[in-house]
């Protein structure tokens, strides 16, 4: 796996995500999944540059549209492994509707959300996951809105693999990414990603993330974990349901 010089800020959480993913790709390669089979798409934001840093087929789409792009890709070529990289601003703001519909369809893909709670590329405005009251450059009085709970939204929309990762725990993140790609159906990994320049949460997450010991056995338990005051990382819930491709009869697993 080759990679080129990155333009992310030193100390950015994106490095952990990139490294973990490169390790996953190497592992998949060893298992016989050739590189050409894994297609990456990324949106607009700091995260979006990841497709430039990977030696994989990719499509850097316009803001917010990774999921419908990958849906189209899977419809036309279901044999491909589709991996989406998105940001919180990209997916939970501009592209929020696509999250609901792609999860509802249970399209077989893995979605990795670089969730730093801020628009980093435009230098620090509030996004859908910015905590209420937080001062950002677009909310200098403090954010008047409640943040969304992306995993609760994904779960209620029908996502069949729900996980939370942390850019500061590469080993666990690697496992989560691997499992998400291996999962048959719509997999989302919301990755807590500190933004050193505009929302530096390294210290907070280092103190507050906690590994989930056991994934939920049903949806109610999953909701409890997601709504818990503790910030659990790990696979929260997974279930095997017919994928969109299976429902359409274009792919059998």
């Amino acid at each position, binding site marked *: 796996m080759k990679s080129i010089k990155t333009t992310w800020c030193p100390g950015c959480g994106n490095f952990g995500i990139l490294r973990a993913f490169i390790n996953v790709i190497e592992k998949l390669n060893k298992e016989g999944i050739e590189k050409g089979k894994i297609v990456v798409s990324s949106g607009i934001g700091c995260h979006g540059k990841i497709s430039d840093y990977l030696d994989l087929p990719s499509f*850097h789409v316009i803001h*917010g549209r990774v999921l419908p792009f990958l849906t189209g890709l899977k419809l036309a070529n279901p044999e491909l492994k589709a991996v989406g990289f998105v940001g919180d601003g990209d997916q939970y703001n501009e592209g929020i509707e696509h999250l609901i519909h792609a999860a509802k369809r249970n399209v077989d893909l893995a979605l990795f959300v670089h969730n730093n709670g801020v628009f980093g590329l435009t230098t620090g*405005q509030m996004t859908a996951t910015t905590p209420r009251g937080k001062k950002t450059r677009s909310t*200098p009085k403090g954010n008047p809105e409640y943040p969304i709970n992306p995993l609760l939204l994904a779960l209620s929309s029908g996502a069949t693999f729900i996980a939370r990762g942390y850019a500061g725990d590469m080993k666990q993140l690697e496992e989560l990414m691997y499992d998400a790609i291996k999962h048959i159906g719509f997999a989302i990994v919301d990755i807590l990603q500190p933004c050193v320049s505009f929302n530096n949460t390294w210290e907070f997450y280092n103190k507050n993330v906690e590994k989930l010991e056991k994934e939920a056995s049903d949806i109610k338990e999953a909701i409890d974990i997601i709504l818990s005051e503790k910030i659990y990382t790990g696979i929260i819930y997974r279930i095997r349901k017919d994928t969109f491709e299976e429902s359409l009869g274009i792919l059998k697993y």
Partner: protein
Amino acid sequence: MRKVVRGFYAIAYAVKLSKPNVICAYPITPQTEIVENLAEMYANGELENCEYITAESEFGAASVVLGASATGARTFTATSSQGLLLMTEVLYNAAGMRLPIVLAIANRAVSAPLSIWNDHQDSISVRDAGIIQIYVENNQEAHDMIPFAFKVAENKNVLLPFMVCVDGFKLTHAYEAVDLLNQEDVDNFLPPYNPVVSLRIDKPVAMGCYAPPPTYMEFRVALEYAMERAKKVIEDESKEWYEITGRDWGAHIKAEYCEDAEVAVIAMGSIVGMIRDVVEEMRKEGMKVGLLKIRTYRPFPAEEIRKALTNVNKVIVIERSLSIGSEPPVTLDVKSALFGHSSQEIHSVVLGLGGRDVPRTQIIKIIKEVYEGKVKPGKRYEGLKEFEEVIP
């Protein structure tokens, strides 16, 4: 008060003085700092009777100001490039609903390929929506055109959205000495918005109704009539603006040295300043060259252009956008304005796409070649590198 400020601040400050009631936007480079400055003014309590929010997308932002405007609020939003394209569906609706929303467009190239740098493709692409478009040359003009935009847009003979197009980075991020308006002057110029119809308790109306074939067409043609009436309103308000500020921007065009010019250059936006500089230098050398700056791209000033070019033999249209599959957009309009009236040579020169630098020497070369009859009329590109297309 003359102050050295950056373009985005000059725009934000003028928005503040225009006393908007609702501001809503979504971050996008190079627009972000305009609304960021407004967010700060809002946080500091400098914006009275005004709410500011960040929307979930540009589509959302345009829809929020649409809703606010429908209740009779004075509204402002700003965007660039992809953001403007995403707003487009809403903006056509706003124009059709005759809601005088004011937008600042920090002009930026559109994707693909992905670029954050300046050209005019974004705003040019929404030219048919029924939105007044003005292209400014510097940050003073950008600053001045904000209250001006509200005044024209809210005029009962007009009632159309108004777009102030400002070259991204080149103007938005540039430092410039700007004579900042004072509140009293703006208040004297711009009265509070008094909507004809709005969603309010005492006089309920239904808005956005379905128009079947027997009624649809009249609404669309009425939009066209409103745009035509906007021409006169823009002229009148430009005169008033001059009286208040002493700054004469012209109304639809600003023609300089065109009366006896052999060659006239037509352009819009920040590039005009450099062209003027070149034209003035050439005049000193005895060359009969002129400059025609187009300010209002919509409504398009066909008559004014015709008049200004009466004595001109050759016209160079310098453009920073394309209409893929036809001639460049401004060229098309200029040709249409002259057709049947005169037969100047028209040179259509596309340059500076996606922020490609346009050096002064390039402008000199373009004008000299035409002046000396070294190039044939028609469309060409300047600053284009030699490249080979891979056609499989």
